């Protein structure tokens, strides 16, 4: 690219230089063809979410090769035209290499403080008849870019008629279960979403004059927006939605409704089976090798995958270890983890996270679950896990993160502020359920200078993590982009005819 520009700025044209220019241009094309895929991933990995950076996005990555071909053709034509023009009077203007992408598009979820984006979202929700939640009375200024809403269950369904056709009842049920926290956890949410979509697809009938591959996606949009209102979607859910959309658009237009539905059902079953069940089993095998008898294992919060690992190691591989479960309010997920461990008679200790540094000297290994693995190697997990990892690092205890590849995400985050989910602030006040005790800040809304912040996720830097156990093996944190690239290549291969 640069060489081409330099040549043009020289201005006066001699035939020798023309030839040189053409040769150089051809070389540049060849180099561009070869380096295009690699360059884009590097750029994509390092890009921080900002508008002004003109880099190639990962979108280019997916159709990398074909775009490079087109670009090469275009450049050839342009060179030819330039050479012709250069023979005439005017000096060649700086021919700009065709801009590939303007810059990365900022997702709507982190632009809650921009009125234009809010207006656009509101319009979309009204047109799709999705109930909207009112904004929170007291917003936390530091997180004003994230959605803060009064998320009470009744407001979601107040205006939702029982027989409206836009949002399928299975999706309403799912949304309510998300909002009330009945389904929580990355795997649970993704699997529940797929089951609900299976039902939506089987109840869907293509209207006349329309194609299933286009109309189904359109009819899924209000459902997805409703789920977004109930609870911001997780990374695993985002991947599920992308997977489903890809398969819907790839349905051949000649196939009948029945065939298409069957095909989609099979794909969904396959996704669940491969990415959740089989991946879980593989990770169990792998992780079980890392556990030896006499170990003291520390875990934080609840992870369905970790539970499987520990149960398998204890029951099937007969390893004698004990578990220390750390927990934090307001969710107290560690309690549920503890309950299931105790039900299988694994010796366990329950502590709050404030005791992490006290107990760390006697711990052999720390196992953590993850909500998502980001493209720069950082791990996004329940709030508090980065603390546990930090303490573990200080005591030289290895930290193993267990995560299936369907939770890998091509987003890059270095801190927990950019992208997070703000939970219900009232949960912080009524910390103990079932006890009608009056908490000292139960009237926090009346105190004007007080605002409560309930973060859900935090991001732990990749260098705190010793290894990530995925179904592709134990990999270091930095190999996440490689795994992503391999996955993208696979999907491109599978879906392109």
């Amino acid at each position, binding site marked *: 690219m640069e060489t081409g520009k330099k040549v043009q700025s020289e201005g006066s044209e001699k035939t020798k230089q023309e030839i040189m220019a053409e040769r150089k241009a051809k070389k540049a094309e060849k180099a561009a063809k070869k380096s295009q895929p690699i360059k884009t991933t590097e750029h994509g990995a390092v890009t921080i979410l900002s508008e002004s950076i003109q880099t190639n996005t990962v979108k280019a990555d997916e159709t990398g090769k074909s775009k490079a071909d087109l670009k090469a053709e275009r450049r050839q034509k342009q060179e030819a035209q330039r050479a012709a023009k250069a023979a005439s009077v005017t000096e060649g203007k700086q021919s700009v290499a065709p801009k590939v992408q303007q810059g990365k598009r900022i997702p709507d979820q982190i632009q809650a403080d921009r009125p234009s984006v809010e207006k656009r979202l509101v319009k979309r929700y009204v047109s799709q008849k999705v109930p909207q939640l009112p904004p929170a009375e007291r917003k936390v200024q530091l997180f004003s870019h994230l959605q803060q809403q009064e998320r009470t*269950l*009744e407001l979601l*369904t*107040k205006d*939702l*008629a*029982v*027989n*409206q056709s836009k949002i399928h*009842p299975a999706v*309403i*049920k799912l949304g*309510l*279960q998300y909002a*009330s*926290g*009945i*389904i*929580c*956890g990355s*795997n*649970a949410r993704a*699997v*529940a979403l797929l*089951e609900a979509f299976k039902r939506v697809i089987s109840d869907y009938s293509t209207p006349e004059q329309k194609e299933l591959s286009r109309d189904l996606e359109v009819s899924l949009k209000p459902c997805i927006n409703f789920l977004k209102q109930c609870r911001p979607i997780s990374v695993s859910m985002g991947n599920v939605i992308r997977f489903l959309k890809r398969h819907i658009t790839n349905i051949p237009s000649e196939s009948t409704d029945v065939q298409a539905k069957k095909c989609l059902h099979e794909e969904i079953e396959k996704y669940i089976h491969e990415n959740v069940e089989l991946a879980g089993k593989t990770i169990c095998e792998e992780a079980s090798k890392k556990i030896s008898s006499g170990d003291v294992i520390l875990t934080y*919060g*609840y992870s*369905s995958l970790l539970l499987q690992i520990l149960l398998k190691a204890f029951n099937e591989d007969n390893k004698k270890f004990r578990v220390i479960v750390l927990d934090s309010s307001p*969710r*107290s*997920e560690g*309690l*549920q*983890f503890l*309950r299931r461990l*105790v*039900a299988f008679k694994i010796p366990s200790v329950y502590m709050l996270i404030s005791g992490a540094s006290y107990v760390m000297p006697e711990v052999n290994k720390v196992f953590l679950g993850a909500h998502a693995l980001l493209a720069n190697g950082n791990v996004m997990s329940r709030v508090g896990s980065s603390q546990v990892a930090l303490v573990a690092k200080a005591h030289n205890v290895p930290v193993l993160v267990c995560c299936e590849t369907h939770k890998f995400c091509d987003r890059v985050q270095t801190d927990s502020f950019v992208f997070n989910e703000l939970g219900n602030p009232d949960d912080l006040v009524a910390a103990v*359920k*079932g006890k009608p005790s009056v908490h000292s800040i139960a009237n926090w809304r009346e105190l004007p200078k007080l605002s409560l912040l309930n973060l859900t996720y935090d991001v732990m830097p990749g260098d705190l993590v010793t290894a990530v156990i995925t179904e592709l093996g134990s990999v270091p944190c930095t190999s996440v982009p490689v795994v992503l690239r391999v996955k993208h290549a696979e999907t491109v291969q599978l879906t392109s005819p």
Partner: protein
Amino acid sequence: MIWFSLKMLENAGFEDVLVIIHEQFKAEIADIPNKYGLKIKLDITCLQKNEDYGTADSLRLIKDKIKTDILVISCDLVCDIPLHKVFDLHRTHQSSVTALFSQTSPEVMLAPAPGPKTKIKQERDLVGLDLQTPRLVFLVSEADLTSENEEELSIRKSVMKHFPQISVQGNLLDAHLYVIKKWVCDYISENRSFTMLKGEVLPHIVRKQFTKSPKRNIDKDLPNADVSVISLNTAKRDIFSFLVGDEEEERIRSYSAWNDHRGDLRGPYQDHAIRCFAYVAKEGFCLRANTLNNYCELNRQVIKRWSTMFPDEEITPPVSKAQVGVDCLIGENTQLSDKCSIKHSIIGQNCNIGDKVRITNCIIMDNVTVMKETTLQGSILMKNSVVENSCDIKDCIVGHTVHSNCKSTNEVLVDADRLLEI
């Protein structure tokens, strides 16, 4: 009467309603949507006049039309509690039966009614609710209790083990509004012994919550492949065999870190496959007109609350020179003479009220004629009845004709040769 229920359903967003009624009322009911401008569609199933069907029997009749979870309400319910809260409970927890209860004020129960003074035996239900979750732990009607044991309520040990904190309330009004899952309807249609929904089916299912579900791997029970096994297909299927589609829910729940209670080793919902939930409405008006008492009270309350309950409907105020109090509701085409005074009453359509008539706290149905100089107090006048001059009627139910100069209190006045159904 059914208009209230239909309006409530329309507000909630229902479009189709299955109505089960006696044959004689069919034409009238079918006409209601047109007459009152409701957009809801009715699908009417008739019951023969002679047969005595309970609610469960009626459900069995229409079992072919039931394809999804259904909402069962009785047409004598007037309530303005937003229904979506009940539905949310049903959807979120995937409960088998969700019931609506309302905390009513005690004055309603004891209001005097016209007609002969009978000893008012209020039918109460003893409702057991869990304190931490909205689950319905037991449901017993007081009548059943007193007939079996002498005012003793026995609670099974399994109930106490699963729910250590139960609140038993006797002042809740059961609105007879149930959201029932489809498999429960299938179960009812299989078991012919159930006749009444509220009296039999509901307590049965509430009790069944605590029975242990049989283990699913039945294949392991066959020990020897050589021995031929004659499976005894008993006529009565176990209730758990009706539960469908539960495996995926269980799998998702096993991935998820949620529990509705803490402190014991049981999973969410106490590992119960059958769950009954109850929504107790603390605000809002809810009353059933299943006794005479309630019917009168209902009429009185509805006028007061009309604007809050049905903000779109308007009552056209009557135009006449009569003194009509604020709390009155006068139907169309009713002729009110001058100099009659009407307070706290409801008058139907096509009535004819004569001169110098004083009507207080009355319920007058359609096509009634009241001649002059009559005083009516706290009475109910049935359709097509005639009250002649100078009568003084207090707390009565008038069936047909009351002759002139009749003074009665607390009676039911009918013609000798005709019967009156109350």
